[in-house]
């Protein structure tokens, strides 16, 4: 009887499955418009430009909003501004908005919308997490910190409907591309005030000025974008619709791709090899760099303050094996500190200033050499006396990564490193309180310039919780941040990088890459390491179905 009912249930399951399958194909044939479908890992927490912080909001924001400029594939293009100029001291920028710039409700986009948005970003009452992005602007930091309360003192001003003037504290080499950042997207005062806290909470609670509008936002499920008929450059936009599904599990997303439900997808680590062999895997840097960060002021653990010890650890790590074992070979060994993609003067910074501090493979001899030097300086005779704990995140992958380093240090240095896994927020809290020995940490660039990494380690820097302080380093960074001589600036940044690797509190491990695969008909999709990723604004799906 049981067997019978089981087989009945199976038959039922089969029939239902077939019915469902039919319904699906019927639906797909209806759409003749060009539609791009892909998945993101989590719901977009906020699409309010001045409050948004996460990568998905930046990605969607890039499509539904447009700043003064548009950055596509690393190049600055005209956006809402049709033209702009900068003063000789590189501190005053004037942007001229295009006449045909319109919001999705038909109203013109004005310089006042930008002024309002920039000041809203900096207003302490907005409580924007990314307010610091506006600290380049004259009095921006003071206004945000409540040191001045009059917003008219902030260095951004609409001279008329179509002219915006921005005054900076110091010359900023990457200022143009910064204007593409989500925090600097315009917003309309009337709409913000109408919806208050619920501004941008739903598709009908905001207006759009980008190539697409948000047609529907089914929270935690999908975002449906449609081409914006009011967009000035609408002829360059090929897609009629973009559907962004929320699928958290990478394996689920990948299976949906296999099933033909998505147009492109990230490849889960275990499938990389297979797809690589088939020539279907593509790779890109997502901008994140990971490193070991040492707490040099840790009581009772003087070796953490010893630069030779830190270098011993750095040379004992086999970066190539590490990447092969923990990420199926996807990612690049970090042989230096500056991410290989960041802009230099003309080319990439790393091309203009080539350098390799750590080798890709481990160098046990050099590691031992540094260790012996360190032990001599510390008056230690046996490496087993050296004890420290590495703090890392709470995933199974983080554990595996930590175990790899643990084993490399055991093999190459004879040091037994402990591993402590904690949830993300707890890790940040322990870092902020400098309550750690060594932490496995990462950083993603805010803008396309080596400074986004280098200024982390200055004395008193908001994120420098290593206790490391070096006058020479501080001087180099200070110079680079204030000069308008961009060649000298780059030279100093390179000096700072070398100094950091030699004496600094960090040991770079890897530059993260992502593996992804797409259907052949998908073209024009750009993967970025800074800003919107993916950038699908000019993508096309000609030949789909």
């Amino acid at each position, binding site marked *: 009887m*049981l067997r019978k009912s089981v087989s009945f249930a199976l038959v039922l*399951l089969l029939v239902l*499955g077939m019915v469902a399958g039919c*319904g699906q194909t019927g639906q797909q044939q209806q759409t003749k418009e060009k539609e791009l479908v892909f998945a993101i890992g989590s719901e977009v927490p906020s699409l309010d430009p001045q409050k948004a912080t996460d990568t998905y909001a930046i990605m969607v924001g890039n499509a539904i909003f447009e700043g003064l400029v548009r950055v596509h594939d690393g190049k600055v293009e005209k956006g809402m501004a049709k033209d702009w100029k900068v003063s000789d001291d590189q501190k005053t920028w004037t942007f001229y908005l295009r006449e045909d710039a319109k919001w999705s409700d038909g109203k013109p986009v004005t310089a006042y919308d930008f002024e309002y948005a920039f000041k809203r970003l900096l207003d302490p009452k907005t409580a924007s997490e990314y307010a610091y992005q506006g600290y380049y602007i004259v009095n921006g930091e003071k206004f945000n910190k409540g040191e001045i309360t009059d917003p008219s003192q902030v260095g951004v001003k609409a001279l008329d409907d179509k002219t915006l003037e921005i005054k900076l504290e110091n010359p900023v080499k990457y200022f143009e591309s910064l204007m593409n950042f989500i925090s600097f997207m315009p917003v309309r005062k009337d709409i913000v005030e109408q919806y208050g*806290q619920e501004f941008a909470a739903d598709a009908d609670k905001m207006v759009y000025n980008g190539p697409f509008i948000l047609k529907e936002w089914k929270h935690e499920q999908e975002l449906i974008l449609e081409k914006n008929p009011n967009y000035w450059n609408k002829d360059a936009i090929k897609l009629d619709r973009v559907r962004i599904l929320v699928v958290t599990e990478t394996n689920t997303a990948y299976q*949906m791709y296999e099933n033909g439900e998505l147009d492109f997808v990230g490849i889960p680590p275990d499938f990389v090899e297979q797809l690589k062999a088939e020539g279907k895997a593509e790779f890109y840097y997502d901008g994140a760099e990971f490193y070991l960060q040492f707490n040099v002021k840790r009581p009772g653990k003087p070796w953490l303050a010893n630069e030779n010890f830190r270098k011993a650890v750095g040379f004992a790590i086999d970066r190539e094996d590490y990447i092969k074992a923990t990420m199926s070979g996807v990612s690049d060994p970090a042989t230096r500190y500056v991410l290989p993609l960041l802009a230099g003067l003309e080319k990439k910074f790393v091309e203009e200033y080539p350098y390799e501090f750590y080798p890709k493979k481990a160098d046990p001899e050099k590691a031992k050499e540094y260790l012996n030097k360190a032990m001599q300086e510390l008056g230690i005779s046996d490496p087993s006396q050296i004890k420290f704990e590495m703090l890392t995140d709470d995933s199974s992958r983080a554990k595996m990564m930590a175990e790899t380093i643990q084993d490399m240090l055991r093999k190459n240095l004879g040091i037994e490193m402990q591993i402590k896994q904690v949830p993300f927020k707890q890790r940040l809290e322990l870092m902020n309180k400098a309550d750690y020995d060594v932490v496995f940490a990462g950083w993603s660039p805010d803008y396309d310039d080596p400074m986004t990494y280098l200024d982390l380690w200055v004395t008193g820097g908001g*994120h420098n919780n290593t206790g490391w302080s070096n006058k020479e380093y501080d001087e180099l960074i200070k110079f680079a941040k204030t000069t308008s001589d961009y060649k000298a600036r780059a030279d100093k940044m390179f000096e700072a990088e070398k100094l950091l690797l030699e004496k600094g509190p960090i040991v770079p491990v890897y530059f993260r890459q992502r593996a992804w695969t797409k259907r052949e008909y998908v073209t024009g999709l750009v993967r970025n390491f800074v800003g919107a990723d993916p950038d699908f604004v000019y993508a096309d799906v000609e030949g789909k179905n």
Partner: protein
Amino acid sequence: MGRYILNRLVVSLITAWVLVTIVFFLVRLLPGDPFTSEKITPEIKQNMMRYYGFDKPLHIQYIRYISNLLKGDLGYSLRYQNRTVNEVIRQAFPYSADLGIRAVIFASIVGITLGIIAALNRNKSLDYISMFIAIVGISVPSFVIGPLLQYVFSIKLKLLPVAQWKGFAYTIMPTFALSLGSIALMARLMRASMLDVVNQDYIKTAKSKGLSPTQIVWKHQIRNAILPVVTVLGPVTATLLTGTFVVEQIFAIPGLGKFYIIGIQNLDYSMVLGMTVFYGLFLIAANFIVDIIYGIIDPRIRIAGK
């Protein structure tokens, strides 16, 4: 009985209040704060603390939270900055409830049936088959069974959609994955309870009265043996209806489950509290109903007390 129910309602409210109070303070004890992030600076964090009123003394915050709660206002989420927790629950709960109800019904029917079959065929092959199903059910967690189902039924057989929640076909695999553990527990409990009951005096009495075996099984054995299953059904229903993290993740269902986890990970205080209140009320109600069902199943049980 009427007085008991009234009494119990009052106690339920007090229970909920104690729960909220405990969680309100516990969540503040967690290391870190809602706005700690990799990139934030202390000054900006202060702006955010002030914005949400976290700069005020804790007891003031508590009073404010409770008075809002009495109005049914769970506050704005700290992570989903422009959405209220009420709104999040309103949007996500229907999905979780839909899936949960399916899973509870499926699990109860299959679990109880398997248990009865096993008990009536004690130590025979049907008993062992039932046990085997139960053991597979409880030893294979949903993070394994979910991807396995997807692989077999979607990728290989092309019968069912991989994930999401857009129609009946989408519900089959998640329902199955979600109910598997409960099926196992219920089947095993039902079997054990049936065997406990079979030697009780009233069954012997029934036998001696000359009732047919079928009558004994239906009228006495099952009715008296179902109690443990009813007991576990209380919390199981509350849990499944208010969303389960793993299954909703694997099948990309926009339910409530993830908000517990994401809420705690991000120290989204209002989200965590809102979820706790919501789940807590469900649980209290479910256990309340279970106690009343006890009395219906077995009139001798007097929960109302002495």
